């Protein structure tokens, strides 16, 4: 039954999304689809990391109102994974923007979004 609590559900979902995203990256031919798959992977990783830091029946690591300063350590979840994910999300958006602009440039040069068409470099 414990597998139906929110952290398990989210971590399972995270891993499944991760696999779907990876599958998308290696099976889809369209560059933009690949980038979308990448953003799915990104989201899934964030999901996994946040669930890893979750502690049952605890609340957000922000001290106000119901959470008191004195026994914060007994009431809040782990702030570190959240901090990491925060960083990772921002990095992710940077990379996504970069990928998209690369895709745009490629399209501009070759008028195609099929990744198979960019094989001039090889061997």
């Amino acid at each position, binding site marked *: 039954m414990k597998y139906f609590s*929110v*952290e398990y*559900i*989210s971590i*399972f*979902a995270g891993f*499944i*999304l991760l696999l*779907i*995203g990876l*599958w*998308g990256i290696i*099976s*889809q031919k*369209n560059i*933009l*689809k690949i980038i*979308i*798959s990448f*953003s*799915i992977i*990104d*989201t899934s990783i*964030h*999901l996994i990391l*946040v*669930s890893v*830091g*979750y502690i049952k029946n*605890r*609340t*957000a*690591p*922000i001290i106000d109102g119901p959470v008191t300063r004195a026994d914060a350590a007994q009431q*809040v*979840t782990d702030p570190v994974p*959240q901090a990491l*994910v*925060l960083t990772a*999300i*921002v990095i*992710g*958006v940077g990379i*996504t*923007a970069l990928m*998209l*602009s690369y*895709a*745009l440039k490629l*399209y*501009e040069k070759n*008028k195609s*979004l099929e990744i198979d068409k960019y094989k001039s470099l090889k061997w």
Partner: protein
Amino acid sequence: MALIMIVMAFIAIYHKSLQVAVIASGIISLFASVIYIFLAAPDVAITEASIGSALTVVIFFYVLNKIRRIDDKK
């Protein structure tokens, strides 16, 4: 909700239309951020909603727009 996310992921990967795929990935982020609320991570939820969901989709559509422009010119 998790199920919806997974369904969305499949849509994002397999739908023919790019716009729909992008929107689907936006919805994945959206649901992820609702889950973050469940997971007691409002900071992450805000970030995911604002950056992961909204801004990424916006950037995607700007790029799609430019791609269409290139097509038009051709």
